[in-house]
Protein backbone atom coordinates (compact mmCIF):
# COMPACT_ATOMS: atom_id res chain seq x y z
CA UNK A 1 0.00 0.00 0.00
CA UNK A 2 1.00 3.61 -0.39
CA UNK A 3 3.11 4.80 2.51
CA UNK A 4 0.69 6.83 4.64
CA UNK A 5 3.54 8.77 6.26
CA UNK A 6 4.45 10.46 2.98
CA UNK A 7 1.00 11.89 2.25
CA UNK A 8 1.13 10.81 -1.38
CA UNK A 9 -1.49 11.55 -4.01
CA UNK A 10 -4.40 9.18 -3.35
CA UNK A 11 -5.46 9.35 -6.97
CA UNK A 12 -2.15 7.89 -8.21
CA UNK A 13 -3.74 4.79 -9.66
CA UNK A 14 -6.80 6.49 -11.11
CA UNK A 15 -7.35 6.96 -14.83
CA UNK A 16 -7.68 10.69 -14.25
CA UNK A 17 -4.43 11.13 -12.29
CA UNK A 18 -3.12 14.62 -12.89
CA UNK A 19 0.00 14.80 -15.03
CA UNK A 20 2.69 17.41 -15.43
CA UNK A 21 6.28 17.44 -16.69
CA UNK A 22 9.11 17.63 -14.17
CA UNK A 23 10.57 20.50 -16.20
CA UNK A 24 7.50 22.55 -15.17
CA UNK A 25 8.47 22.10 -11.54
CA UNK A 26 11.95 23.35 -12.41
CA UNK A 27 10.40 26.47 -13.94
CA UNK A 28 8.29 27.29 -10.89
CA UNK A 29 11.12 26.41 -8.50
CA UNK A 30 13.54 28.68 -10.29
CA UNK A 31 10.97 31.50 -10.33
CA UNK A 32 10.28 31.12 -6.59
CA UNK A 33 13.98 31.06 -5.76
CA UNK A 34 14.42 34.23 -7.79
CA UNK A 35 11.73 35.90 -5.72
CA UNK A 36 13.38 35.18 -2.39
CA UNK A 37 17.05 35.35 -3.34
CA UNK A 38 18.29 38.34 -5.38
CA UNK A 39 21.56 36.53 -6.10
CA UNK A 40 19.87 33.80 -8.12
CA UNK A 41 20.78 34.11 -11.80
CA UNK A 42 19.76 32.01 -14.83
CA UNK A 43 21.46 31.39 -18.16
CA UNK A 44 20.00 29.79 -21.25
CA UNK A 45 21.51 28.51 -24.47
CA UNK A 46 18.60 29.27 -26.80
CA UNK A 47 16.21 26.83 -25.11
CA UNK A 48 14.56 29.15 -22.60
CA UNK A 49 10.95 28.14 -23.10
CA UNK A 50 11.36 24.40 -23.45
CA UNK A 51 13.57 24.22 -20.36
CA UNK A 52 10.95 26.35 -18.57
CA UNK A 53 13.42 29.06 -17.60
CA UNK A 54 11.09 31.56 -19.33
CA UNK A 55 9.06 32.29 -16.19
CA UNK A 56 12.25 33.43 -14.42
CA UNK A 57 13.48 35.27 -17.53
CA UNK A 58 10.27 37.30 -17.78
CA UNK A 59 10.10 38.08 -14.07
CA UNK A 60 13.77 38.97 -13.59
CA UNK A 61 15.18 40.09 -16.96
CA UNK A 62 18.15 41.78 -15.28
CA UNK A 63 19.19 38.41 -13.85
CA UNK A 64 18.66 36.35 -16.97
CA UNK A 65 21.34 35.99 -19.65
CA UNK A 66 20.80 34.60 -23.13
CA UNK A 67 24.03 32.93 -24.20
CA UNK A 68 22.95 31.70 -27.61
CA UNK A 69 23.73 28.22 -28.90
CA UNK A 70 26.95 27.90 -26.91
CA UNK A 71 26.81 25.43 -24.05
CA UNK A 72 30.53 25.57 -23.19
CA UNK A 73 30.38 29.34 -22.91
CA UNK A 74 27.24 29.08 -20.77
CA UNK A 75 28.94 26.71 -18.33
CA UNK A 76 32.11 28.77 -17.95
CA UNK A 77 30.27 32.11 -17.64
CA UNK A 78 28.16 30.49 -14.92
CA UNK A 79 31.37 29.33 -13.23
CA UNK A 80 32.67 32.91 -13.11
CA UNK A 81 29.41 34.18 -11.65
CA UNK A 82 29.23 31.32 -9.17
CA UNK A 83 32.54 32.30 -7.58
CA UNK A 84 31.38 35.94 -7.46
CA UNK A 85 28.49 35.56 -5.05
CA UNK A 86 25.81 34.36 -7.46
CA UNK A 87 23.72 31.19 -7.39
CA UNK A 88 23.60 30.25 -11.04
CA UNK A 89 21.24 27.92 -12.91
CA UNK A 90 22.13 26.82 -16.44
CA UNK A 91 19.48 25.09 -18.51
CA UNK A 92 19.70 23.08 -21.68
CA UNK A 93 18.99 19.61 -22.95
CA UNK A 94 21.09 17.09 -21.07
CA UNK A 95 22.72 15.74 -24.23
CA UNK A 96 24.21 19.25 -24.73
CA UNK A 97 24.71 20.25 -21.10
CA UNK A 98 26.33 18.34 -19.37
CA UNK A 99 26.94 16.41 -22.62
CA UNK A 100 28.70 18.71 -25.06
CA UNK A 101 30.25 20.88 -22.31
CA UNK A 102 31.33 18.04 -19.99
CA UNK A 103 34.97 19.05 -19.59
CA UNK A 104 34.09 22.73 -19.20
CA UNK A 105 31.81 21.83 -16.31
CA UNK A 106 34.38 19.44 -14.84
CA UNK A 107 37.13 22.07 -14.73
CA UNK A 108 35.35 25.37 -14.19
CA UNK A 109 32.38 24.31 -12.05
CA UNK A 110 33.13 21.04 -10.27
CA UNK A 111 36.89 21.17 -9.60
CA UNK A 112 36.70 24.96 -9.30
CA UNK A 113 33.86 24.46 -6.75
CA UNK A 114 31.61 27.14 -8.21
CA UNK A 115 28.00 27.63 -7.12
CA UNK A 116 26.35 26.43 -10.32
CA UNK A 117 23.32 24.19 -10.79
CA UNK A 118 23.22 22.28 -14.05
CA UNK A 119 19.66 21.58 -15.17
CA UNK A 120 19.68 18.80 -17.76
CA UNK A 121 16.40 18.55 -19.61
CA UNK A 122 14.83 16.08 -22.05
CA UNK A 123 16.37 13.20 -20.13
CA UNK A 124 15.55 9.64 -21.07
CA UNK A 125 13.83 7.96 -24.01
CA UNK A 126 10.66 9.54 -22.67
CA UNK A 127 11.76 12.58 -24.69
CA UNK A 128 10.01 10.66 -27.45
CA UNK A 129 9.59 11.92 -31.04
CA UNK A 130 12.83 13.97 -31.08
CA UNK A 131 14.82 10.75 -31.30
CA UNK A 132 18.04 9.49 -29.76
CA UNK A 133 20.10 12.64 -30.43
CA UNK A 134 17.91 14.46 -27.91
CA UNK A 135 17.20 11.60 -25.49
CA UNK A 136 19.87 11.75 -22.78
CA UNK A 137 20.39 8.22 -21.53
CA UNK A 138 24.04 8.52 -20.46
CA UNK A 139 24.00 11.75 -18.44
CA UNK A 140 23.91 10.21 -14.97
CA UNK A 141 26.84 7.94 -15.84
CA UNK A 142 28.81 10.84 -17.26
CA UNK A 143 28.45 13.13 -14.25
CA UNK A 144 28.40 10.84 -11.28
CA UNK A 145 32.14 10.24 -11.19
CA UNK A 146 32.73 13.96 -10.59
CA UNK A 147 33.95 14.28 -7.00
CA UNK A 148 31.51 16.19 -4.81
CA UNK A 149 28.68 16.66 -7.32
CA UNK A 150 25.10 16.31 -6.08
CA UNK A 151 22.71 14.54 -8.45
CA UNK A 152 18.96 14.91 -8.02
CA UNK A 153 16.27 13.33 -10.20
CA UNK A 154 12.82 14.43 -9.05
CA UNK A 155 9.96 11.97 -9.56
CA UNK A 156 7.25 14.50 -10.48
CA UNK A 157 6.65 18.20 -10.99
CA UNK A 158 5.98 18.91 -7.31
CA UNK A 159 9.22 17.24 -6.29
CA UNK A 160 11.02 19.01 -9.14
CA UNK A 161 9.96 22.33 -7.65
CA UNK A 162 11.25 21.31 -4.21
CA UNK A 163 14.49 19.87 -5.58
CA UNK A 164 15.23 23.04 -7.54
CA UNK A 165 14.67 25.22 -4.48
CA UNK A 166 16.70 22.89 -2.25
CA UNK A 167 19.62 22.93 -4.68
CA UNK A 168 19.61 26.72 -4.73
CA UNK A 169 19.65 26.97 -0.97
CA UNK A 170 22.97 25.20 -0.58
CA UNK A 171 26.38 26.24 -1.97
CA UNK A 172 28.03 24.00 -4.53
CA UNK A 173 27.65 22.23 -7.85
CA UNK A 174 24.51 20.19 -8.44
CA UNK A 175 23.06 18.28 -11.38
CA UNK A 176 19.28 18.28 -11.72
CA UNK A 177 17.67 15.91 -14.24
CA UNK A 178 14.30 16.67 -15.81
CA UNK A 179 12.07 15.06 -18.40
CA UNK A 180 10.07 16.52 -21.24
CA UNK A 181 6.77 14.65 -21.24
CA UNK A 182 3.98 14.92 -18.72
CA UNK A 183 4.00 12.19 -16.08
CA UNK A 184 1.66 11.33 -13.19
CA UNK A 185 1.92 13.42 -10.04
CA UNK A 186 2.64 11.04 -7.16
CA UNK A 187 3.43 13.41 -4.34
CA UNK A 188 1.42 16.24 -2.77
CA UNK A 189 2.54 19.58 -1.37
CA UNK A 190 2.54 17.84 2.04
CA UNK A 191 4.99 15.13 0.97
CA UNK A 192 8.37 15.75 2.61
CA UNK A 193 11.54 16.08 0.53
CA UNK A 194 15.09 15.98 1.73
CA UNK A 195 18.15 15.85 -0.54
CA UNK A 196 19.97 12.54 -0.02
CA UNK A 197 17.05 10.79 1.70
CA UNK A 198 15.32 8.08 -0.34
CA UNK A 199 11.55 7.76 0.09
CA UNK A 200 9.69 4.48 0.29
CA UNK A 201 6.42 5.15 -1.55
CA UNK A 202 5.03 1.61 -1.37
CA UNK A 203 5.20 -0.43 1.80
CA UNK A 204 4.14 -3.91 2.86
CA UNK A 205 4.67 -5.94 6.01
CA UNK A 206 6.48 -8.88 4.47
CA UNK A 207 8.11 -7.61 1.29
CA UNK A 208 9.78 -10.20 -0.94
CA UNK A 209 11.58 -7.65 -3.08
CA UNK A 210 12.43 -3.95 -3.19
CA UNK A 211 12.15 -1.83 -6.31
CA UNK A 212 14.51 1.14 -6.36
CA UNK A 213 13.28 3.62 -8.95
CA UNK A 214 14.33 7.10 -9.96
CA UNK A 215 12.57 9.97 -11.70
CA UNK A 216 9.14 9.58 -13.22
CA UNK A 217 9.84 5.82 -13.60
CA UNK A 218 8.83 5.54 -9.93
CA UNK A 219 5.24 5.69 -11.20
CA UNK A 220 5.67 2.55 -13.33
CA UNK A 221 7.27 0.83 -10.34
CA UNK A 222 4.21 1.68 -8.22
CA UNK A 223 1.84 0.33 -10.86
CA UNK A 224 3.92 -2.86 -10.96
CA UNK A 225 3.87 -3.15 -7.15
CA UNK A 226 0.10 -2.83 -7.06
CA UNK A 227 -0.36 -5.56 -9.68
CA UNK A 228 2.17 -7.78 -7.92
CA UNK A 229 0.26 -7.34 -4.65
CA UNK A 230 -2.86 -8.64 -6.41
CA UNK A 231 -0.83 -11.71 -7.36
CA UNK A 232 0.26 -12.16 -3.74
CA UNK A 233 3.79 -10.78 -4.17
CA UNK A 234 4.61 -8.05 -1.69
CA UNK A 235 7.23 -5.44 -2.46
CA UNK A 236 8.66 -2.10 -1.44
CA UNK A 237 9.01 0.77 -3.91
CA UNK A 238 11.62 3.33 -2.98
CA UNK A 239 12.06 6.59 -4.87
CA UNK A 240 15.79 7.24 -5.09
CA UNK A 241 15.58 10.89 -6.09
CA UNK A 242 19.15 11.62 -5.01
CA UNK A 243 21.75 9.53 -6.82
CA UNK A 244 24.59 11.34 -5.09
CA UNK A 245 25.01 11.41 -2.19
CA UNK A 246 23.25 8.05 -2.21
CA UNK A 247 21.10 7.02 0.75
CA UNK A 248 23.18 3.89 1.25
CA UNK A 249 21.67 3.15 4.66
CA UNK A 250 18.13 2.76 3.31
CA UNK A 251 19.32 0.82 0.28
CA UNK A 252 21.37 -1.67 2.28
CA UNK A 253 18.61 -2.10 4.89
CA UNK A 254 15.93 -2.79 2.30
CA UNK A 255 18.16 -5.11 0.29
CA UNK A 256 18.87 -7.12 3.47
CA UNK A 257 15.22 -7.09 4.47
CA UNK A 258 13.95 -8.43 1.13
CA UNK A 259 16.87 -10.29 -0.43
CA UNK A 260 15.79 -9.26 -3.94
CA UNK A 261 16.39 -5.91 -5.66
CA UNK A 262 15.14 -4.40 -8.91
CA UNK A 263 16.35 -1.03 -10.19
CA UNK A 264 14.23 1.07 -12.55
CA UNK A 265 15.39 4.08 -14.54
CA UNK A 266 15.04 5.82 -17.89
CA UNK A 267 18.81 5.77 -18.49
CA UNK A 268 21.51 3.29 -19.42
CA UNK A 269 21.80 0.63 -16.73
CA UNK A 270 25.60 0.94 -16.99
CA UNK A 271 26.62 3.79 -14.75
CA UNK A 272 23.05 4.72 -13.90
CA UNK A 273 20.91 3.89 -10.88
CA UNK A 274 21.41 0.19 -11.56
CA UNK A 275 25.17 0.56 -11.56
CA UNK A 276 25.13 2.79 -8.48
CA UNK A 277 23.10 0.34 -6.42
CA UNK A 278 24.97 -2.71 -7.68
CA UNK A 279 28.26 -1.12 -6.57
CA UNK A 280 26.84 -0.34 -3.15
CA UNK A 281 25.35 -3.78 -2.59
CA UNK A 282 28.36 -5.65 -3.98
CA UNK A 283 30.39 -4.04 -1.22
CA UNK A 284 27.94 -4.11 1.67
CA UNK A 285 25.32 -6.77 1.02
CA UNK A 286 25.40 -8.86 -2.17
CA UNK A 287 21.80 -9.40 -3.24
CA UNK A 288 19.90 -10.94 -6.14
CA UNK A 289 19.41 -8.06 -8.58
CA UNK A 290 17.59 -7.29 -11.80
CA UNK A 291 17.85 -4.11 -13.82
CA UNK A 292 15.22 -2.21 -15.78
CA UNK A 293 16.62 0.50 -18.04
CA UNK A 294 18.35 1.02 -21.36
CA UNK A 295 20.53 -1.96 -22.25
CA UNK A 296 23.49 -0.52 -24.12
CA UNK A 297 21.41 0.78 -27.03
CA UNK A 298 20.29 4.21 -28.20
CA UNK A 299 16.60 5.10 -28.23
CA UNK A 300 14.62 6.22 -31.27
CA UNK A 301 11.61 8.35 -32.25
CA UNK A 302 8.21 7.28 -30.96
CA UNK A 303 5.62 8.00 -28.30
CA UNK A 304 6.96 7.69 -24.74
CA UNK A 305 4.69 4.77 -23.83
CA UNK A 306 5.62 2.94 -27.05
CA UNK A 307 9.30 3.41 -26.31
CA UNK A 308 9.00 2.15 -22.72
CA UNK A 309 7.29 -0.97 -24.01
CA UNK A 310 9.77 -1.58 -26.84
CA UNK A 311 12.79 -1.14 -24.59
CA UNK A 312 11.22 -3.27 -21.82
CA UNK A 313 10.97 -0.54 -19.22
CA UNK A 314 7.19 -0.47 -18.61
CA UNK A 315 5.27 -1.92 -15.65
CA UNK A 316 5.06 -5.35 -17.27
CA UNK A 317 8.84 -5.44 -17.61
CA UNK A 318 9.22 -4.40 -13.97
CA UNK A 319 6.86 -7.18 -12.86
CA UNK A 320 8.94 -9.72 -14.80
CA UNK A 321 12.15 -8.37 -13.28
CA UNK A 322 10.75 -8.61 -9.73
CA UNK A 323 9.73 -12.23 -10.22
CA UNK A 324 13.11 -13.07 -11.67
CA UNK A 325 14.97 -11.36 -8.81
CA UNK A 326 12.89 -13.26 -6.27
CA UNK A 327 13.51 -16.57 -8.06
CA UNK A 328 17.24 -15.96 -7.97
CA UNK A 329 17.48 -15.07 -4.28
CA UNK A 330 20.80 -16.01 -2.76
CA UNK A 331 20.53 -18.55 0.00
Amino acid sequence: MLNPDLKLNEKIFGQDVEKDATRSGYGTGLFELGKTNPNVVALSADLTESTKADKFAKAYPERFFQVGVAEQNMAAIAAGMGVSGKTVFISSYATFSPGKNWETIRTTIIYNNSNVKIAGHHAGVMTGPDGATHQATEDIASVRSWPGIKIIIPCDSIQANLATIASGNEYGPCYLRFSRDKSPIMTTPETPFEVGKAQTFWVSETPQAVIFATGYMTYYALVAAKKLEQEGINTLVTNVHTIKPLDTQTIIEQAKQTGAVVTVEDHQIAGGLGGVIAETLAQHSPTSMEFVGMRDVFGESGKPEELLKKYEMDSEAIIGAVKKAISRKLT
Partner: protein
Amino acid sequence: MIDDLTDKKELELRGIAVEIRELIIKMLLEAGSGHSAGPLGMADIFTAFYFHILNHDPKKPDWDGRDRLVLSNGHICPVLYVTLAKAGYFPIKELMTLRKLNSRLQGHPHRTALPGIETTSGPLGEGISQSIGMALAARMDNKRHQIYCLTSDGEHQEGNTWEAIMFAAKYKLDNLTVVIDRNNIQIDGTTENVMPLETLRLKYESFNWYVIETDGNNLEGFVDAVRQARSVHEQPSVIIAHTIPGLGVDFMENNYLWHGKSPDEKQAKEALSELRTLQGKIKSEHQ
Protein backbone atom coordinates in the same frame (compact mmCIF):
# COMPACT_ATOMS: atom_id res chain seq x y z
CA MET B 1 43.04 54.69 -11.47
CA ILE B 2 46.36 53.47 -12.73
CA ASP B 3 49.27 55.80 -11.96
CA ASP B 4 51.72 57.02 -14.56
CA LEU B 5 54.77 54.82 -14.79
CA THR B 6 57.65 57.07 -13.77
CA ASP B 7 61.21 56.31 -14.93
CA LYS B 8 62.11 55.38 -11.37
CA LYS B 9 59.17 52.99 -11.03
CA GLU B 10 59.91 51.47 -14.42
CA LEU B 11 63.48 50.67 -13.41
CA GLU B 12 62.22 49.13 -10.20
CA LEU B 13 59.75 46.99 -12.15
CA ARG B 14 62.44 45.89 -14.58
CA GLY B 15 64.48 44.67 -11.65
CA ILE B 16 61.51 42.75 -10.26
CA ALA B 17 60.84 41.20 -13.69
CA VAL B 18 64.39 39.83 -13.84
CA GLU B 19 64.06 38.42 -10.30
CA ILE B 20 60.83 36.77 -11.38
CA ARG B 21 62.58 35.22 -14.39
CA GLU B 22 65.37 33.89 -12.17
CA LEU B 23 62.87 32.29 -9.80
CA ILE B 24 60.99 30.77 -12.76
CA ILE B 25 64.18 29.03 -13.92
CA LYS B 26 65.00 27.86 -10.38
CA MET B 27 61.54 26.46 -9.71
CA LEU B 28 61.31 24.74 -13.09
CA LEU B 29 64.70 23.09 -12.51
CA GLU B 30 63.52 21.87 -9.11
CA ALA B 31 60.16 20.66 -10.49
CA GLY B 32 61.79 18.79 -13.38
CA SER B 33 58.87 19.53 -15.73
CA GLY B 34 56.68 22.45 -16.77
CA HIS B 35 56.59 25.26 -19.32
CA SER B 36 59.53 27.66 -19.75
CA ALA B 37 59.07 29.96 -22.73
CA GLY B 38 55.60 31.38 -21.98
CA PRO B 39 56.35 32.26 -18.34
CA LEU B 40 59.61 34.04 -19.27
CA GLY B 41 57.89 35.95 -22.07
CA MET B 42 55.07 37.06 -19.76
CA ALA B 43 57.24 38.08 -16.78
CA ASP B 44 57.04 41.78 -17.69
CA ILE B 45 53.26 41.77 -18.00
CA PHE B 46 52.82 39.95 -14.67
CA THR B 47 55.19 42.42 -13.03
CA ALA B 48 53.22 45.34 -14.45
CA PHE B 49 49.94 43.91 -13.18
CA TYR B 50 50.88 42.86 -9.66
CA PHE B 51 53.30 45.71 -8.89
CA HIS B 52 51.58 48.60 -10.63
CA ILE B 53 48.19 48.06 -12.27
CA LEU B 54 46.06 45.86 -10.03
CA ASN B 55 44.10 47.17 -7.09
CA HIS B 56 44.72 44.26 -4.73
CA ASP B 57 45.87 43.31 -1.25
CA PRO B 58 48.01 40.18 -0.92
CA LYS B 59 47.13 40.02 2.77
CA LYS B 60 43.42 39.89 1.92
CA PRO B 61 43.25 37.67 -1.16
CA ASP B 62 39.45 37.31 -0.86
CA TRP B 63 38.80 41.05 -0.54
CA ASP B 64 35.66 41.62 -2.59
CA GLY B 65 36.78 44.92 -4.10
CA ARG B 66 39.97 43.53 -5.66
CA ASP B 67 40.59 43.65 -9.39
CA ARG B 68 40.43 40.10 -10.79
CA LEU B 69 43.27 38.68 -12.82
CA VAL B 70 42.15 35.47 -14.49
CA LEU B 71 44.84 33.29 -16.05
CA SER B 72 43.15 31.42 -18.90
CA ASN B 73 46.22 29.60 -20.21
CA GLY B 74 47.00 27.89 -16.93
CA HIS B 75 50.12 26.17 -18.24
CA ILE B 76 52.16 29.37 -17.79
CA CYS B 77 51.43 29.25 -14.05
CA PRO B 78 55.12 29.32 -13.00
CA VAL B 79 55.11 33.07 -13.73
CA LEU B 80 51.84 33.51 -11.83
CA TYR B 81 53.15 31.59 -8.81
CA VAL B 82 56.44 33.48 -8.70
CA THR B 83 54.71 36.85 -9.06
CA LEU B 84 52.13 36.04 -6.38
CA ALA B 85 54.89 34.94 -4.00
CA LYS B 86 56.95 38.06 -4.69
CA ALA B 87 53.85 40.20 -4.13
CA GLY B 88 53.38 38.55 -0.72
CA TYR B 89 50.52 36.08 -1.22
CA PHE B 90 52.58 33.18 0.15
CA PRO B 91 56.22 32.45 1.11
CA ILE B 92 58.79 32.47 -1.72
CA LYS B 93 60.36 29.24 -0.45
CA GLU B 94 57.10 27.44 -1.25
CA LEU B 95 57.86 27.96 -4.96
CA MET B 96 60.24 25.01 -4.82
CA THR B 97 57.28 22.67 -4.14
CA LEU B 98 55.88 23.20 -7.66
CA ARG B 99 54.36 20.00 -9.09
CA LYS B 100 55.28 17.97 -6.00
CA LEU B 101 53.04 15.84 -3.78
CA ASN B 102 50.98 17.79 -1.21
CA SER B 103 51.95 21.12 -2.76
CA ARG B 104 49.55 24.04 -3.10
CA LEU B 105 51.35 24.80 -6.38
CA GLN B 106 49.63 22.37 -8.70
CA GLY B 107 51.01 21.71 -12.19
CA HIS B 108 48.12 23.81 -13.44
CA PRO B 109 46.57 26.39 -11.11
CA HIS B 110 43.70 25.41 -8.82
CA ARG B 111 41.53 28.15 -7.32
CA THR B 112 40.84 26.58 -3.97
CA ALA B 113 44.44 25.42 -3.42
CA LEU B 114 46.33 28.69 -3.22
CA PRO B 115 45.53 32.31 -2.25
CA GLY B 116 45.43 34.70 -5.19
CA ILE B 117 44.25 32.18 -7.78
CA GLU B 118 40.94 33.34 -9.29
CA THR B 119 40.08 30.28 -11.40
CA THR B 120 41.11 26.71 -11.92
CA SER B 121 42.64 26.54 -15.40
CA GLY B 122 44.68 24.44 -17.75
CA PRO B 123 42.17 23.18 -20.30
CA LEU B 124 42.25 26.03 -22.82
CA GLY B 125 39.60 28.46 -24.01
CA GLU B 126 37.66 28.77 -20.76
CA GLY B 127 39.13 31.89 -19.16
CA ILE B 128 37.35 34.62 -21.09
CA SER B 129 33.98 33.01 -20.35
CA GLN B 130 34.75 32.83 -16.64
CA SER B 131 35.95 36.43 -16.68
CA ILE B 132 32.67 37.40 -18.33
CA GLY B 133 30.81 35.75 -15.45
CA MET B 134 32.82 37.82 -12.99
CA ALA B 135 32.27 41.00 -15.03
CA LEU B 136 28.51 40.41 -15.17
CA ALA B 137 28.38 39.73 -11.43
CA ALA B 138 30.33 42.94 -10.74
CA ARG B 139 28.03 44.95 -12.96
CA MET B 140 24.90 43.51 -11.33
CA ASP B 141 26.24 44.46 -7.91
CA ASN B 142 27.43 47.93 -9.01
CA LYS B 143 31.02 47.09 -8.13
CA ARG B 144 33.83 49.03 -9.77
CA HIS B 145 36.64 46.49 -9.92
CA GLN B 146 38.10 45.49 -13.28
CA ILE B 147 38.40 41.96 -14.66
CA TYR B 148 41.58 41.18 -16.59
CA CYS B 149 41.88 37.92 -18.46
CA LEU B 150 45.29 36.76 -19.65
CA THR B 151 45.06 34.37 -22.59
CA SER B 152 47.42 32.72 -25.02
CA ASP B 153 47.30 33.14 -28.77
CA GLY B 154 47.04 29.36 -29.26
CA GLU B 155 43.83 29.12 -27.27
CA HIS B 156 42.15 31.29 -29.87
CA GLN B 157 41.91 28.03 -31.80
CA GLU B 158 39.29 26.88 -29.25
CA GLY B 159 35.67 27.46 -30.26
CA ASN B 160 34.75 28.43 -26.70
CA THR B 161 37.02 31.47 -26.96
CA TRP B 162 34.96 32.86 -29.84
CA GLU B 163 31.68 32.08 -28.10
CA ALA B 164 32.93 34.23 -25.25
CA ILE B 165 34.13 37.00 -27.57
CA MET B 166 30.64 37.22 -29.12
CA PHE B 167 28.97 37.31 -25.72
CA ALA B 168 31.18 40.02 -24.18
CA ALA B 169 30.44 42.35 -27.09
CA LYS B 170 26.70 41.67 -26.89
CA TYR B 171 26.65 42.66 -23.23
CA LYS B 172 29.08 45.60 -23.77
CA LEU B 173 31.36 44.50 -20.93
CA ASP B 174 33.63 47.50 -20.52
CA ASN B 175 34.81 46.19 -17.15
CA LEU B 176 36.58 43.35 -18.97
CA THR B 177 40.01 43.57 -20.58
CA VAL B 178 41.54 40.57 -22.31
CA VAL B 179 45.31 40.40 -22.79
CA ILE B 180 46.60 38.04 -25.48
CA ASP B 181 50.13 36.74 -25.13
CA ARG B 182 50.92 36.94 -28.85
CA ASN B 183 54.16 34.99 -28.82
CA ASN B 184 53.40 32.99 -31.99
CA ILE B 185 54.31 29.58 -30.57
CA GLN B 186 52.38 26.59 -29.32
CA ILE B 187 53.35 23.01 -28.47
CA ASP B 188 53.37 21.66 -32.03
CA GLY B 189 55.03 24.64 -33.70
CA THR B 190 54.28 28.22 -34.67
CA THR B 191 50.65 29.28 -34.47
CA GLU B 192 50.55 30.28 -38.13
CA ASN B 193 51.66 26.78 -39.13
CA VAL B 194 49.49 24.85 -36.69
CA MET B 195 46.33 26.89 -37.33
CA PRO B 196 46.66 30.47 -38.56
CA LEU B 197 45.19 33.14 -36.28
CA GLU B 198 45.90 36.26 -38.26
CA THR B 199 44.55 38.77 -38.53
CA LEU B 200 43.68 38.73 -34.85
CA ARG B 201 43.15 42.49 -34.71
CA LEU B 202 40.60 42.43 -37.52
CA LYS B 203 38.86 39.41 -36.07
CA TYR B 204 38.36 41.13 -32.72
CA GLU B 205 37.33 44.40 -34.37
CA SER B 206 34.73 42.63 -36.44
CA PHE B 207 33.38 41.10 -33.23
CA ASN B 208 32.99 44.67 -31.95
CA TRP B 209 35.83 44.82 -29.45
CA TYR B 210 38.19 47.73 -28.85
CA VAL B 211 41.64 46.54 -29.90
CA ILE B 212 45.06 47.77 -28.76
CA GLU B 213 48.35 46.29 -29.98
CA THR B 214 51.51 46.75 -27.99
CA ASP B 215 54.92 45.36 -27.17
CA GLY B 216 54.25 43.09 -24.21
CA ASN B 217 57.85 43.25 -23.05
CA ASN B 218 57.87 47.04 -22.82
CA LEU B 219 56.57 47.98 -19.39
CA GLU B 220 55.77 51.60 -20.18
CA GLY B 221 53.99 50.71 -23.40
CA PHE B 222 52.00 47.96 -21.73
CA VAL B 223 50.88 50.11 -18.81
CA ASP B 224 49.76 52.76 -21.30
CA ALA B 225 47.81 50.11 -23.21
CA VAL B 226 45.96 49.06 -20.03
CA ARG B 227 45.21 52.71 -19.19
CA GLN B 228 43.80 53.13 -22.68
CA ALA B 229 41.71 49.96 -22.31
CA ARG B 230 40.27 51.27 -19.04
CA SER B 231 39.10 54.44 -20.77
CA VAL B 232 36.88 52.50 -23.22
CA HIS B 233 33.15 52.56 -22.57
CA GLU B 234 30.35 50.26 -23.75
CA GLN B 235 32.83 47.84 -25.32
CA PRO B 236 35.12 45.10 -24.04
CA SER B 237 38.77 45.71 -24.80
CA VAL B 238 41.60 43.45 -25.86
CA ILE B 239 45.33 44.11 -25.74
CA ILE B 240 47.28 42.08 -28.25
CA ALA B 241 50.62 41.97 -26.46
CA HIS B 242 53.47 40.92 -28.71
CA THR B 243 55.95 39.09 -26.53
CA ILE B 244 59.14 37.17 -27.06
CA PRO B 245 58.78 33.66 -25.66
CA GLY B 246 61.73 32.75 -23.45
CA LEU B 247 62.81 36.40 -23.19
CA GLY B 248 66.00 36.91 -21.17
CA VAL B 249 67.47 33.49 -21.96
CA ASP B 250 69.09 33.50 -25.37
CA PHE B 251 68.72 29.82 -26.26
CA MET B 252 65.04 29.78 -25.29
CA GLU B 253 63.95 32.93 -27.10
CA ASN B 254 61.49 32.40 -29.97
CA ASN B 255 62.04 28.65 -29.93
CA TYR B 256 58.81 26.66 -29.76
CA LEU B 257 60.69 23.63 -28.45
CA TRP B 258 60.88 25.50 -25.13
CA HIS B 259 57.10 25.97 -24.96
CA GLY B 260 56.43 22.88 -22.91
CA LYS B 261 59.67 21.79 -21.22
CA SER B 262 61.87 22.73 -18.29
CA PRO B 263 65.66 23.26 -18.26
CA ASP B 264 68.16 20.68 -16.99
CA GLU B 265 70.90 21.68 -14.55
CA LYS B 266 73.38 22.86 -17.17
CA GLN B 267 70.75 24.82 -19.08
CA ALA B 268 69.44 26.38 -15.88
CA LYS B 269 72.94 27.48 -14.91
CA GLU B 270 73.44 29.14 -18.26
CA ALA B 271 70.01 30.78 -18.09
CA LEU B 272 70.64 32.15 -14.60
CA SER B 273 74.01 33.54 -15.59
CA GLU B 274 72.39 35.40 -18.51
CA LEU B 275 69.66 36.76 -16.26
CA ARG B 276 72.21 37.89 -13.64
CA THR B 277 74.09 39.78 -16.32
CA LEU B 278 70.81 41.46 -17.28
CA GLN B 279 70.09 42.27 -13.64
CA GLY B 280 73.57 43.79 -13.29
CA LYS B 281 72.91 45.95 -16.33
CA ILE B 282 69.62 47.20 -14.87
CA LYS B 283 71.28 47.95 -11.53
CA SER B 284 74.07 49.91 -13.18
CA GLU B 285 71.48 51.95 -15.11
CA HIS B 286 69.83 52.69 -11.79
CA GLN B 287 73.00 54.03 -10.17
